[in-house]
């Protein structure tokens, strides 16, 4: 286990091999996965169990490693609204498109480019000559703006609590005057609450998103076992992590003692990342927000506080789109996003709608359920 040895001076080839070995041996060990699957089969109840995760990366792990095939037929793991670009309403894409067509430089994550707005995506705007640039993080966008002070830059800040702290860091660092934000960050627990309350969804447990949890900690999930009787396990993203999450939930169901557990203790602490929370509280208010395909969810969106109005692109560039076309004709993203149907149940899947020519937002980002399934089929 030398990979974890402290104060390694250099990353030699040996370290790399060890790192890969640990991953293979443990977090991705097929034998361990098989053994774990046997345990899951042994403990699974006779009735149907529906476990919901809310992270695109969990869906990727589950689909990529074929984990569903390892589970008993009556243990279903469904994908909830865990893909940030998929839940961003069309109106917020429309705002960015409007600004781009007006000559503002729009910076965004690569995933955002093809997300359909009501009429066009940012990629379409780019084809019309707009200056739309992909960045790895908001910091890179700020650097671009510093180099081109004559141009107006806007960062389309999409993402959950994992990404929102980086926006907060850059706002508090006072970006140059030619830089502003379209803040579109969403908060995950209220969406989980909505799902827990959907009677016809009949969820029995949650696999909570590992990386959102590194920031928010465990406390926001307490409500799920307490008020809804749902076992909730924060899990990591390796195949063994996810299988263990399922196992822990089934174990709780068997004992009929729903609780909140942390499988991902190597990065998730009870209190979360308090520094990140502090910075987010400084710059953001939490307001009700629209989610594509889900409607308005109470207290689920970050907006900029008054003190930071100078960085609010809505005010600075006077752009506000109230309503957009969230679901294109024939697209069933609104059902895919709550795990009600599988992508394969959509008549357009891999016919009119493909990763090359996506119809709905779920086929765009690498965390979108349709896109992940498209890759796997």
């Amino acid at each position, binding site marked *: 286990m030398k990979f974890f040895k402290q104060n390694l001076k250099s990353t030699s080839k040996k370290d790399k091999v060890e790192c890969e070995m640990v991953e293979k041996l443990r977090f991705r060990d097929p034998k361990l996965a098989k053994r774990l699957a046997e345990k899951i089969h042994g403990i699974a109840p006779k009735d149907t169990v529906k476990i919901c995760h809310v992270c695109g990366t969990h869906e990727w792990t589950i689909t990529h490693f074929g984990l569903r095939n390892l589970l008993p037929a009556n243990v279903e793991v469904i994908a909830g609204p865990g893909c940030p670009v998929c839940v961003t309403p069309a109106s917020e894409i429309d705002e960015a498109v409007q600004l781009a067509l007006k000559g503002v430089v729009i910076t965004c994550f690569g995933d955002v480019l093809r997300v359909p707005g009501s009429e066009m995506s940012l990629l379409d705007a780019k084809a019309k000559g707009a200056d739309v640039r992909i960045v*790895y993080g908001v910091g890179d966008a700020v650097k671009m703006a510093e180099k081109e002070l004559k141009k107006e830059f806007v960062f389309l800040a999409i993402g959950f609590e994992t990404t929102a702290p980086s926006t907060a860091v850059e706002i508090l660092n006072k970006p140059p005057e030619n830089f502003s934000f379209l803040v579109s960050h969403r908060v995950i627990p209220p969406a989980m609450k909505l799902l827990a309350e959907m009677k016809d969804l009949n969820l029995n447990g949650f696999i909570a998103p590992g990386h959102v949890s590194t920031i928010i900690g465990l406390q926001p999930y307490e409500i799920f076992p307490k008020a809804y009787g749902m076992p909730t396990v924060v899990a990591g993203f390796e195949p063994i992590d996810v299988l263990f999450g399922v196992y822990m939930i089934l174990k709780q169901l068997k004992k009929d003692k729903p609780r909140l557990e942390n499988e991902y203790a190597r990065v998730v602490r009870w209190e979360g990342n308090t520094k990140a929370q502090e910075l987010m509280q400084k710059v953001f208010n939490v307001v009700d927000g629209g989610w594509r395909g889900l409607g308005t969810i109470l207290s689920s969106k970050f907006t900029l506080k008054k003190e930071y109005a100078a960085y609010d692109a809505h005010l600075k560039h006077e752009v506000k789109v109230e309503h957009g076309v969230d679901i294109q004709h024939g697209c069933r993203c609104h059902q895919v996003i709550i795990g009600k149907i599988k992508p394969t149940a959509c008549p357009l899947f891999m016919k009119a709608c493909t990763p090359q020519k996506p119809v709905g937002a779920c086929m765009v980002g690498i*965390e979108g359920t349709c896109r992940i399934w498209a890759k796997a089929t």
Partner: protein
Amino acid sequence: MLIVMCLAIPAKVISLKEDKAQVDFGEGVLREVNVTLVNAKVGDYVLVHAGYAIQVVEKKEALETIQLWNEILQAEPEVNI
């Protein structure tokens, strides 16, 4: 590098300067990341998301998790009642 919103990747801190760190993602390629959100030391592994370190990976916890898995797996098989 893959540009993924949610996929945060662990990397080793090689050097630190104010709010910036040079980290190694294990390919021997160094990248600069922002460490405002964490208290990381040289040699720590940090979880990096979109250019920002969001948490320090606890080596102790990582090892304990593996140990816990082993213990559970070595325990008696579950019997359905």
